[in-house]
């Protein structure tokens, strides 16, 4: 493989210097290899992302039995599509309806369902989101472009322990003719976190 990132011709910022120093030190000591690190990066940058979750949602929209299994045992139903692993060992799927809107947060750190959504975006890990999702979810959602009618009940899920949450959004109207792949293309990461409808 190319080892571009193991050289640093231009001036490095302090954090770049620290990361580089730690990696080189661990490699020199034989504790890790550059390739181990490359492998983790590639897996989460190239292979695992919200398209996995979108496929789960599209399957649930087109197969009522699958939807039932997904809501009853999220981990097992998600594994049927081949997804699982770290931060996905205990999956809970919560369903949006006309009456209920679900929102997922991790107030303590950044827990997020990696196998179906990949690594979380910056805003999910940010102090504003983490502090306000539990305190004023409706105001936060409105600021993020998700206006909810007053009568819709908001359910916030703080992933404070082992469960990781995935929101099953509502199937958009007028999509009866679409197949599973076309439906998956309509499902956004934000809808599966609950900051979009």
């Amino acid at each position, binding site marked *: 493989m190319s080892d571009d990132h193991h050289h640093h011709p231009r001036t490095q910022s302090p954090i770049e210097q620290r990361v580089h120093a730690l*990696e080189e030190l661990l490699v020199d000591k034989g504790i*890790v290899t550059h390739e181990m690190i490359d492998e983790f990066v590639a897996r989460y940058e190239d292979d695992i992302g919200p398209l996995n979750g979108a496929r789960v949602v599209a399957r649930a929209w087109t197969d009522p039995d699958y939807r039932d299994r997904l809501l009853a045992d999220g981990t097992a139903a998600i594994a049927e599509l081949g997804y699982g692993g770290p931060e996905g060992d205990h999956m809970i799927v919560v369903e949006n309806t006309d009456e209920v809107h679900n929102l997922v947060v991790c107030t303590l750190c950044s827990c997020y369902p990696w196998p179906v959504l990949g690594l979380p975006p910056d805003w999910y890990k940010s102090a504003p989101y983490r502090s306000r999702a539990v305190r004023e979810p409706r105001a936060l959602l409105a600021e993020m472009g998700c206006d909810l009618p007053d009568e819709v009940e908001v*359910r916030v899920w703080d992933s404070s322990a082992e469960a990781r949450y995935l929101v099953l959004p509502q199937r958009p109207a007028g999509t009866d003719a679409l197949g599973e792949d076309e439906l998956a293309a309509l499902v956004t990461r934000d809808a599966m976190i609950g900051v979009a409808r």
Partner: protein
Amino acid sequence: MEGFGPPAVEIDEPVFHHDWERRAFGITMASFVLGVSNGGQFRHSIERMDAEHYLGSRYYEHWLTGVATRLVETGRVTIEELEAGAGGGFPLSRPVASAGVTVPEPGTDVTVGDEVRVRRITTRGHTRCPRYVRGRRGTVVRIDPPSSLPDLEAHGDARRSEPIATVRFDGRELWGEGAERAAVHVDLWLSYLERVT
């Protein structure tokens, strides 16, 4: 904590914003495989960061600081080696508190539908009992399988496995009369709870 304003949402955000974030992520993932930290130890290493450093740095700088701290604490590298490699300072997290690290007594069994109150846990060590629910009343809506209590796991070899209860809190119970209408669900190890009789 409050006063953070709206979350900054980036359109088409990349998984990593800088190459050093890729490396910090990969180093940390490798460190888990090598047994440098369990989940509680790693989270606590970040919680022990200097507060200003934590709030003023990017997410993967938290990881880098936590994993470097654990590598020093477990004797795999020294601060002198890190600073020599970085050509300057290498801020680590503060040491584990020498006093005031407490572990809650085992709680009682609860079942779905029970009214519970969250214990007012005080510890200078690690816990996954969020401060905003301590002392608050809610209703158990789900019980998850037993899992290792983080308060113990982060601080030694002792382990206690306990079921985790999902507790539903009314927004007004958490934030007062003027709170938004919302239900907030938090996943809590049984030791964090007491039944309301």
